[in-house]
Structures are given as structure tokens and as C-alpha cells.
């Protein structure tokens, strides 16, 4: 009732939120893979060893999307991986990374998501193999692999390195693909960003630690993250190509510098033996 009498000003900044949505690559999972697909109306298939996930509609449509959500629902989803009705999200939704997003950024993201036109595209239910289809089992997975809480800056690191760590670890959620996983789909913590022979979609994923990245100089790495092309005319594999188009090419120059600096600062970890 009060909400009608006193229009609630969005606490978040939708313009900042638009940038954060790019940095977090939300469109990648929440948009159909086809020409002129409506952004954030859902549809992307993620084929994993546990079955196929279908990215849901997160436009502010009251039935098809998240139009009935409150800001608190949104913050809770990101921070704890829980739906407004209390059920667990499958960690295909990368809340183990998004939990690190700062409250202020989450509010800006919410303001942006609210500002989008509602779309009625119906979300498809996931198509998972038993027993991975049992949502309550995610509680066990969370106990093994997930701790909630926003990013805490490391006082021993420069602000730029902390910013890079935040962009890579929280928003960019790069580790969701670039960190190898156990058979139960949890991250191998001793292999942070060191790549995987079989990523979430069964394809090999690059090692981002200095063990491999030392082969690239800063200019090459920057050009690659901006355009997806290497100096010798080689092209990013398409899964990453999409990330480059949607996310890394959209970062401010300072943010891209921070990402590169952070990757260079990682402990060098050799590829997993094949």
C-alpha cells in the first residue's frame, strides 16, 4: 500500500547496472542463440554431464519472467542461490561466483533488470538426469562446495588487483568454465583458473594462469580480449568468442587492465595431465 502512495525510487543505478550486466555476461545464458533474440528472455541451452539446462526468462514479465520479484529476492538469488520460494538453484546459475557481488552492484543490476521491457517468452524447464534433477540434493552440493558472502578485498593487493579479482571471480565468473571440476561438479580449488580438459559443456577450456598466459604479451592479450583475434589471425573458440563480444570487449580500459593484471598475478598451475 505504501508503495503505491510513495513511489519507491530505485535504490540502484540502472545505468551502472547495464555495465555490470555486461561484465557479468548475463545475456549469454539468458538469451536464445538465434538472430534478433530478445535479450534476457531466456533460451540458451547449457549441455552438461548432468543434463541440459535452459536459461530462464529474467525480463520483468509478471508471469514469464521475474516481474513479481522484489529487490530482496534478486539479492538473495545472487548471494545464496535460492529462489523466492526457497528452493535451491542448480549451480549452473553461477551463484558460487555471483555471491561475491557487492550489495551496491547487485542493486544496480536489479535496477537495470527492472528497466528492461517485459517479454512473454516462456522458460523451459531443465532436462536433467536422475538424481541430478532433484533440487533438494543441491543443498548437499552447497554444503560441499559453496559458501556465501561478498568479495573481500585483499589488503595486501593493490586496488587494481582487487578490482581484477572482483571482475574475474565475482562478475565475470570466469572460473565457472576455467576452473576444473570434480565428478560432482564442484570446483577443484587447487586448480583455480588453470583450465580443464572437459569444461561444463564437454569442451576443453584454456589455462589462464601464467603457466600458459606467459606465452602472450600484454598487447596480444588485450587485443584478444577486445576482438577475439590473435596477431597471427587465429580466432577465439566460439564459446569464448561470445564472452569476448558480450563481456570483455565491453569493459572499460581500466577494468580490462585490472583483469589482465589479476590473471598475471595468479599462481602458475600446469595443465592437468591428460
Amino acid at each position: 500500500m505504501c508503495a503505491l502512495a510513495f513511489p519507491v525510487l530505485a535504490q540502484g543505478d540502472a545505468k551502472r547496472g547495464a555495465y555490470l550486466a555486461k561484465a557479468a555476461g548475463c545475456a549469454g545464458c539468458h538469451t536464445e542463440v538465434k538472430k534478433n533474440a530478445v535479450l534476457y528472455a531466456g533460451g540458451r541451452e547449457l549441455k552438461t554431464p548432468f543434463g541440459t539446462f535452459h536459461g530462464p526468462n529474467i525480463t520483468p514479465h509478471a508471469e514469464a519472467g521475474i516481474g513479481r520479484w522484489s529487490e530482496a529476492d534478486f539479492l538473495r538469488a545472487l548471494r545464496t542461490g535460492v529462489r523466492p520460494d526457497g528452493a535451491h538453484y542448480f549451480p549452473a546459475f553461477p551463484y558460487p561466483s555471483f555471491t561475491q557481488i557487492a550489495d551496491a552492484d547487485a542493486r544496480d543490476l536489479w535496477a537495470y533488470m527492472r528497466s528492461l521491457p517485459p517479454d512473454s517468452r516462456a522458460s523451459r524447464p531443465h532436462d536433467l538426469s536422475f538424481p541430478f534433477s532433484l533440487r533438494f540434493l543441491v543443498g548437499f552440493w552447497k554444503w560441499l562446495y559453496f559458501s556465501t558472502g561478498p568479495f573481500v578485498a585483499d589488503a595486501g593487493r593493490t586496488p587494481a588487483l582487487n578490482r581484477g579479482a572482483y571482475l574475474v571471480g565475482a562478475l565475470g565468473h570466469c572460473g565457472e568454465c576455467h576452473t576444473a571440476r570434480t565428478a560432482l561438479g564442484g570446483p577443484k580449488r587447487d586448480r583455480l583458473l588453470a583450465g580443464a580438459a572437459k569444461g561444463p559443456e564437454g569442451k576443453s577450456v584454456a589455462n589462464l594462469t601464467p603457466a600458459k598466459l606467459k606465452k602472450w604479451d600484454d598487447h596480444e592479450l588485450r587485443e584478444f580480449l577486445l576482438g577475439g583475434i590473435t596477431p597471427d589471425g587465429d580466432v577465439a573458440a566460439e564459446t569464448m568468442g561470445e564472452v569476448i563480444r558480450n563481456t570483455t570487449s565491453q569493459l572499460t580500459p581500466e577494468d580490462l587492465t585490472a583483469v589482465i593484471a589479476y590473471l598475471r598475478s595468479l599462481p602458475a598451475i600446469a595443465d592437468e595431465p591428460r
Partner: protein
Amino acid sequence: MKKSFFAATAAVVLGVGVAQSAFAQVKPEILVKQRQAKMILQGKYLGPLFAVAQGKAPYNAAAVQRDAGFLDNLTRMAWDGFDPSTRNEKSRALPAIYDNNAKFKEYANRLENEVSRLVTLSKGGDEAAVKAQISAIGKTCGGCHDDFRQK
């Protein structure tokens, strides 16, 4: 004109026939080097085209046509470099190439077709269409690498 045309055709047909049986005996490590050379040269001519598509280099119709022409030949070369005999050679080629060869061939055909399309478009005046086609080629390269090349 007719005589030399038929003579040329006969030479090509016979040459291909002879060459194919010769290829069957080429050592796998040489086949691998040949296919890698093809890829390196594709990159050589794609690099300047990507720069044009991304607005980092000015559009020069003659240069685009020339590079597209080189690519048109290169994309059709050395696919025999992925002969089953090369499976165990050391390279970034993934086993999926051999296990899922039908899909690999689809990507190969797609690349050839997309580059042919670029050749045609590069002779027209539509810069935007040429740039869009170069990006489409980039996605085709990336699509194949995604599934069939070690990262």
C-alpha cells in the same frame, strides 16, 4: 579455346586422381605439417581481413578481394591432413575430429562456403556486407576450434 580447356580439365582430373593415391602414402607427420601450414596461411590472410571488419584498418577493396581470393584457395587445401592415419600425431587436433568426422566435415564445408561468399561480396560495393561476412567467417573458425581443437 575448347581444346586447351579440355586438355586442362583432363590434366586436373588425372592429376587429382594420381595425387589422391599419392596422398594415401604420405606419412602422417607430413600430413599434419601440411594442414598446419594451411591453417597458418589462412591466419595470414584472415588477420588483415579481421582488422578491416573491426574497423582497425581502412577498407581497401583491392586488398580485400586479393586476400579473399587467397583464402578461397587455402580453405579448400589440405583437408586430407586430417586423414585417420594422423590420429596419433602430436598436435592440438582433438580426437573428436576422427570420432565425429561428419560434424567436422560440416564445419569444413561451412568454412569453404562462407569464404566463397566473401569472394563474391568483395567484388560488390557493399562494405557493410563484406565486414559482416568476415565476422561470419570468424565465427565459423571459432566454432570449429571450439569443438575440435585443444585450447
